[in-house]
């Protein structure tokens, strides 16, 4: 049994403690927006937030997560796709196949939470997720658009 806090709600799951968070989300909780791509923290398709930090859930056993730690998944980013980063993605029609995009979006939100006005170099350093369709330039533009929109809102 593990107690997790996911998208603000406490969740108790019967699971082997070694099970990675990714598979608990996908198989125990039916939250399939977080994707399996490599299982070795290389591709970033499984990115979620752990206490606000973008984290690759495919190598994170649930036993390593405390019940008080806040897990946010793509499903919890906003109830309706209204998060500024999702809106920027929509405005630029970023996804192609879309499989990596949950992880891309979660990584981008994580970046913007740490750094509201990232430079290209900041984006290069933090956005290491793999996209095989090749959406990288649109992802970069959407991050900048979201950063600009957030600044406008804040200002």
């Amino acid at each position, binding site marked *: 049994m593990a107690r997790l806090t996911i998208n603000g*709600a*406490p*969740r*108790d*799951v*019967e699971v*082997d403690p*070694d*099970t*990675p968070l990714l*598979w608990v989300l*996908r*198989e*125990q*909780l*039916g*939250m*399939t*927006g*977080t*994707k*399996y*791509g*490599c*299982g*070795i923290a*290389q*591709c970033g398709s499984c990115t979620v937030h752990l206490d606000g930090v973008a984290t690759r859930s495919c190598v994170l056993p649930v036993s390593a997560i405390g019940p008080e730690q806040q897990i946010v*998944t*793509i*499903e919890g*980013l906003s109830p309706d*796709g209204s998060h500024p980063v*999702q809106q920027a*993605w*929509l405005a630029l*029609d*970023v*996804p*192609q*196949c*879309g*499989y*990596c*995009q949950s992880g891309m979006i979660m990584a981008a939100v994580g970046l913007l939470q740490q750094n509201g006005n990232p430079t290209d170099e900041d*984006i*290069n*350093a933090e*956005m*290491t*997720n*793999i*996209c*095989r*369709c*090749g959406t*990288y*330039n*649109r992802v*970069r533009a959407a991050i900048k658009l979201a950063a600009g929109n957030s600044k406008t809102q804040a200002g």
Partner: protein
Amino acid sequence: MLIVPTVTRRNFIVGSAAALGGLSLGFSVPFPGGAQADAIAPEINAWVVVRPDETVVIRIARSEMGQGTLTGLAQLVAEELECDWSKVTTEYPTPGDNIARNRVWGSFSTGGSRGIRESQDYVRRGGATAREMLIAAAADEWQVLASECMAARGVITHGPSGRSTTFGKVATAAAGMTLPAEVTLKDPSTWTIAGKPLPRLDTAEKLTGKQIYGVDMVRPNMLNAAIRACPVFGGRATGFDAGAVSGMPGVRKVVQVDDTAVAVVADTWWQAKTALDNLPIEWDDGPNSGVTSETIAAMLAEGLEAEEAFLGNEAGDARAALAGAAQTVTAVYSFPFQNHATMEPMNATAVYTDDRCEVWCPTQNGEASLAAAAEASGLPVERCEIYKLHLGGGFGRRGNFQDYVRQVVSIAKQMPGTPIKLIWSREEDMLHGAYHPITQCKLTGGLDADGNLTALHMRISGQSILAAVRPQAMQGGRDPVVFQGLHAGGDEYALGYSIDNLLIDHAMRNPPIPPGFWRGVNLNQNAIYMECFMDELAHAAGQDPLAFRRKLMANHPKHLAVLEAVAERIGWDSAPPEGVHRGLAQIMGFGSYVAAAAEVSVTDGQLRVHRIVAATDPGHVVNPAQVERQVEGSFVYGLSACLYGECTVNGGRMEQENFDTYNVLRMAEMPAVETIIMPSGGFWGGVGEPTIAVAAPAVLNAIFAATGKRVRRLPLMNHDLRAV
């Protein structure tokens, strides 16, 4: 724990409620389990359903895998239908329906950049026919001439009286109208929906995690399977010790899958994978355990000099002209095996009973999946069905190759009545690909005293995809697909140079590694071989690479036009910024003319690709915004291959098992991309693949300009670009 509360003909809701948490999530999954009829929404014809609320459902036979075909094909139908684009939604008819209805939707195959260009005529006719039937129904109701009525944005208006009605109101009557004998298609210059940079129809759900892919499939009482096939190509699984894992959490069954693989079935996939990792399996490696990259390279090198070869393109007498040339230049290139590495690994879900087999899967060819399900289940095709799900990438891996469908059916057949979801691990995916074929190429060019190219011999040695996967398409033992981009003419793959004495031939050498159609196919390496060698010849002749090519392209105006376009945009005639160097490439493939110009710098051996300008002439453009995205994406695919793509063989198996050893381009390395879309009309070329081919040679030629080094053996990561 996992429940499916409602199933209707058209939609079913996948619900999952956590055992303890109480949260319930509902996803709507496309489930076109009967496209023939709808209790509330009449089908006007096979392509168009209009609902009473004015929603227009457009049927799409080809598969959406990110390339935008869903949106593009819907635009073509909607253009002729004259419906309100904001009311358009799409659905997949099933392969079973297609067969039951005498293949009314044509081919389901989605590859070769053919989705739109191959079906554009009949889908537009489908839209136009439906429009005429809707108009006829309104005219009939009003007792006026149909020729006095017109449709626009889903509204039908009678000109003389000004009366109007909507598609939704007359849809039921329209469904009963006689099909018009003939329809006239609109001239593309008058298009208002097609040809426009409309946003994709499938974006919103990809931003919230709601888009359902094959790996997300859930069925009632479903179990999950993990599989391992003999890692050595041609090897077999001869035994396993199920007792070693039968007590592990969640494990239900361990099964043999044909004679090559073993699968563990468990409550969850993680449990299945964990048990599989602990399962002792005996392998018979078979005849290929001594095969290595070195033995394959030697096999191909022999082919470079072999007497016998299949002819691809010939003019004059290349051998005699080379013997008499003032100067000859020779170079040998090679291009390795590569994995498609779709982000979503291979997967499928199946349920088998004695009289029916159903499969839910991401597939580039639903009819090929159906055939695979029938074959593996032993049931007649009429008792099988495929439900297509969205693909997390395809790139050619999920079309011709339905191994994952056969496997899941084989497992499901051993547990009748229980739905089984099979997901390959990334490692399984990397070890059992349908790899980009391996080739080497020896080029010899002859220059006259004035530096004009008088002769060229291009000998390709290596693998034939058709020999492995579609031998019936071979032409007397020859594989024409080997010569993509090098043909003497034609609408698809014409060489863009006129060379008086030319010989392009292929010594087929097929190592025992399964090859496949890999986005761009043979155009990728053929463009590197031809375009990098053109650059070598130009430098040997002491001429500008653009001017050198231009002399050979007088009879190839469309090839030349895209090349000139990228050269002009990159500023070929002016000096590049300090430390930046340029390269060019052009080719024709998949019916389109494409070119690229790259700007790179190499500092202390570190390559930086700053910018690539692309040009494409695909004849007609259905959605320019999607064309731009495909070009950008194609460069990621092409540059990933150029920089990193290599699967090496040792002991008859692939050595790379995951992205840690099979790297791909990441965001930090992505150049700025500018795309010039220059459709010249009169033909329909493809979009998804052709530009991949020009990325690598443009960059390689720019690297030569920067360093004086010719990289002829791909990928780049194996080379030191530092100055010596």
